[in-house]
């Protein structure tokens, strides 16, 4: 796999743009989640602007790759990526969470083209991904199924039921991506309900596991391509991310899980993001 330097640079700058969109959306909504969406901006940029086979003009074409967002509360970042890809006009972004908007507080399959399934209630995205991947296998379809899930939702038994099942069926057309940001609502994951050693748990259930820096787009794309090459198992990419990434007062603070910025905070957040330009690779911090 070769990606030009210029292309990677472009993906970072798109990620930065998505972060700015998210800040604006959350500020105007007056409610919603900040930390998760900002932390997943680099990965969403990589997905929608490099990895996924998709067509914003024909959102339901049969051979498209499926991206299922299990942790639905981080939808602002997906909405921004869909809009910037051309699924719907950018001006709609500011209707997030408002009455009659296609941008529901948590994603609804029937409200917005490009949303593969409804989510918000945690812990059932991976199961649905398995359902999609098994269907693809039955129909001999070539598309891949990606499931983005959070670390917090590993508290749900349903998540583990799915982890074991994907191992059983050796679903090589399924790739899970975990937003391993170490926070959930009540605190740090290792305080609320310890998950480590997470890698070992997945391996024990028959998965190929790749750890990546979730803010290194090149590394993430490399892992996705590696997953395509593994044909006897499903792959999980544990993406180590910084919640609130790009806005210093939000980074790593679990209080920003479910809080939007107010006007002043939004202005400061946008100032910081603009200054960063397209460059926020974690090594450069």
């Amino acid at each position, binding site marked *: 796999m070769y990606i030009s330097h210029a292309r990677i640079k472009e993906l970072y700058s798109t990620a930065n743009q998505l972060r700015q969109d998210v800040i604006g959306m959350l500020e105007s*909504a*007056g*409610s*919603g989640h900040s930390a998760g969406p900002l932390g997943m901006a680099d990965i969403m940029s990589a997905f929608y602007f490099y990895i996924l086979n998709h067509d914003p003009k024909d959102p339901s074409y049969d051979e498209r790759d499926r991206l299922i967002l299990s942790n*639905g509360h981080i939808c602002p970042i997906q909405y921004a990526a869909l809009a910037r890809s051309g699924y719907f006009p950018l001006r709609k972004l500011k209707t997030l*969470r*408002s*009455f*009659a*908007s296609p*941008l*529901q*507080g*948590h994603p*609804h399959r029937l409200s917005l083209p490009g949303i593969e399934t*409804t*989510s*918000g*209630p*945690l*812990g059932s995205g991976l199961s649905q991904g398995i359902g999609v991947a098994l269907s693809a296998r039955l129909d001999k379809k070539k598309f891949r199924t990606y499931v983005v899930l959070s670390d*917090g*939702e590993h*508290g*749900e*038994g349903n998540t583990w039921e799915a982890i074991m099942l994907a191992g059983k069926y050796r679903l090589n057309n399924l790739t899970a991506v975990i937003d391993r940001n170490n926070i*959930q*609502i*009540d605190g740090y994951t290792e305080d*609320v*309900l310890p998950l480590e050693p997470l890698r070992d748990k997945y391996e024990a259930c028959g998965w190929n596991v790749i750890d990546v820096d979730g803010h290194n787009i090149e590394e993430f794309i490399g892992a996705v391509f590696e997953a395509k090459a593994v044909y006897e198992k499903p792959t999980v990419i544990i993406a180590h991310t910084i919640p609130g990434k790009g806005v210093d007062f939000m980074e790593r603070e679990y209080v920003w899980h479910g809080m939007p910025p107010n006007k002043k905070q939004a202005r400061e957040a946008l100032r910081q993001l603009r200054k960063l330009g397209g460059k926020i690779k974690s090594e450069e911090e």
Partner: protein
Amino acid sequence: MIHKALSLSHTLFSGHEDMQALRDGYGRGLLEAGENENVVVITADLEESTRCHWFSRLYPDRFFDVGVAEQNMAAVAAGMGISGKIPFINSYATFSPGRNWEQIRTLCAYNDSNVKIAGHHAGLLTGPDGATHQSLEDIALMRSMANMRVLVPLDALEAQRATVAAAGVRGPVYIRLQREKTPVITTKDTPFQIGRAYPLWIPKTKRVDVVLIGAGPVLHEALKAARDLEKKKIHSVVINVPSIVPLDTKEILSWVARAGAVVSVEEHSIYGGIGSAISELLSKKNPVPMEFIGVDGQFGQSGTGYELYKQYKLLSSDIIIATQKVIKRKRS
């Protein structure tokens, strides 16, 4: 007119009612109930938004956070409830009792384990979060199982009383709670007993044209409707039914016998909820014309509380229309 004997709030209808969230009343109720050392509180990664954090600060040893795991929470609580503890379990109603319904049914109710289930953020007032988080089915879910008391408090103070009462009775209890601040209608002197219904508004005259009946904060809309109907010389009673199971059949039937027409009001699906409970009772004991205010076969969506009340026809103006319709049916 306002039923004096219930010592309701002086600020009712003042336009500047005291506003408090049911969950705040619940949180205070937990503190009160917590004086009993057997009371324990469990949450599934929602400590603050379910108002367990006051209890957890005061009684850290009796507080447990199980992570995002509602089924585990209900089953752990069932184990505690058969071991002499009085566990209160806390999550949003769509997840508890939504997701963990079978654990509640079999391990708490059938097992007669002493578990109290607090279903938070119920109804449309959950607003911008959208349909995934707006529980419109929880009363139906809980009312249909045996050995489950179902409480739907009217305001923050009643939520507090319901919480204390739930801790005081043996056996499983469901308490439905809401997130937004809503008008405080009762006072600390207002009575509350599991199994009792209370007429908040009574007709000025001997004549009663209609019974408006329901539970939860949406009853404020029924009270406004009753006040406006009186100006049109339509005399109503507004019955608050915070205890859906067991139901105060005596109080309800005596008013229905006088009025001969009923409008039920709830921030819930009209299928399986409070209106259904009333209509099941009436079809056996005294079938009269009835209209249902509530969500009719739809999911919710994002929006403000007002926008959603308007969309799903839960406003006092909708209650007035339903009342006129039901009175017409009675006369025809």
